[in-house]
């Protein structure tokens, strides 16, 4: 973390960048938040630790409009989102100075809480420099421990790899934390009967409060104005009066980012209701991989996305019914 801060100071001082896009200390030990830093003094609040899950690439859309360059900190998986935004002409590569920061998996406070650890005062083992595999958590009820891996975000268990796909310089080591199959959850649902599937999603989606956190955090959901806010489809945001609304919203949201979603997992991370929203996006990714060939959005900034492309002998839609 110190290395990042020193480098940021240097870049600010020598005028390479006008500001730094990173994370600052939050009001609790586990909720750092995205922030701009314009001076060396600001950087005193800079933090980079196991709780800095937030993907900063989307902030670059606005930062691209600002005067001067912005130093942006991207974790390996964030860099995919950034690349995708370049492909879509949403961010200006020339306005960004990308510092690829090391990552050894990010933590999910909800998992810690679910483990029955409440009243947290401080957590150690979350710094990038810590080699510890165990989190030591001080709580008002006494000291607790939890293994780092058990507290990781779902997305880190299916990590895309420790390499950044775009950067200007790298600071810190990364670790591939993949220890689960990416599509295992999807396959489990696919194997359910239609009734079970329906009940599963009904239960999950009925929790949705349409707070739009998923939409706001999603780097692919970067429309100036969402169709659910505009009058173009007679779909402007309505109160959540029926179960269909969420289905429609989440299906369309997933469809609109299909072929563009890098599977960064931010939607699930920020959902205050804990809805596993990545299950929608990842289903599309799985289908795309199976039907049209392996595709990872954001792996490059040039290739055609699967929904703006085709082959003459693509599968027919009847494949859905045929595979049962």
């Amino acid at each position: 973390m110190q290395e990042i801060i020193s480098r940021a100071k240097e870049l600010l001082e020598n005028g390479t960048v006008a500001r730094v896009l990173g994370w600052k200390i939050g009001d609790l030990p586990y909720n750092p938040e995205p922030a701009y830093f314009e001076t060396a003094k600001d950087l005193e609040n800079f933090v980079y630790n196991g709780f800095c899950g937030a993907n900063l690439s989307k902030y670059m859309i606005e930062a691209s409009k600002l005067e001067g360059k912005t130093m942006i900190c991207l974790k390996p998986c964030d860099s995919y989102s950034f690349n995708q935004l370049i492909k879509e002409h949403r961010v200006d590569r020339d306005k960004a100075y990308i510092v690829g920061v090391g990552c050894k998996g990010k933590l999910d406070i909800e998992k810690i809480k679910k483990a029955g650890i409440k009243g947290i005062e401080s957590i150690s083992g979350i710094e990038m420099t810590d080699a510890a595999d165990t989190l030591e958590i001080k709580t008002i009820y006494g000291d607790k421990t939890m293994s780092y891996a058990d507290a990781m975000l779902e997305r880190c268990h299916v990590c895309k790899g420790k390499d950044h796909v775009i950067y200007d310089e790298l600071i810190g080591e990364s670790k591939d934390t993949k220890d689960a199959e990416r599509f295992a959850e999807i396959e489990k649902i696919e194997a359910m009967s239609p009734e079970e599937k329906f009940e599963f999603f009904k239960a999950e989606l009925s929790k949705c409060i349409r707070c739009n956190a998923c939409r706001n955090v999603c780097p692919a959901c970067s429309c100036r104005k969402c169709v659910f806010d505009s009058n173009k489809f007679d779909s402007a945001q309505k109160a959540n009066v029926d179960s269909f609304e969420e289905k429609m919203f989440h299906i369309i949201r997933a469809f609109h980012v299909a072929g563009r979603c890098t599977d960064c997992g931010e939607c699930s991370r920020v959902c205050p209701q804990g809805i596993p929203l990545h299950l929608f996006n990842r289903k599309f990714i799985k289908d795309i991989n199976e039907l049209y060939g392996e595709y990872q959005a954001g792996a490059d900034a040039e290739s055609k996305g699967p929904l703006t492309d085709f082959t003459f002998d693509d599968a027919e839609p009847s494949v859905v019914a045929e595979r049962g």
Partner: protein
Amino acid sequence: MSVENQFKPKIVAFCCNWCSYAGADLAGSSRLTYPADVKIIRVPCSCRVNPMFILRAFEKGADGVIICGCHPGDCHYSTGNYYARRRMTLLFSMLDYIGIENGRTRVEWVSAAEGVKFSQTMNEFVDKIRSLGENVRLGDLRCKK
């Protein structure tokens, strides 16, 4: 079973102007019947069909939605149906994934010369929807009169 009690499904058929709508016209001029439950909406090309339209139809109480376009390779706009094919495959797969009966959606390629196929397809589709019954899972009771 009396006619009144028979389930009358609501079925929306999106037909591309160049092939399938003309195919439906040919079915008409050849007097090839299919149930009146099917109502056709003319679109220029199958690639004009937005998933929003399909979900909207279900939201408003449709029991089945079918999209008809030119055969792959014969699209009036060269490539439109290829995009439609990918979009609809993914959308249908998603609907299936969340537990909507996959028989409620269908894509069929019908050329302007295939009046017989159009009529057959619609008969089959209506039969299928009748066997599935009313669309409860995607329907929005609020919107149904």
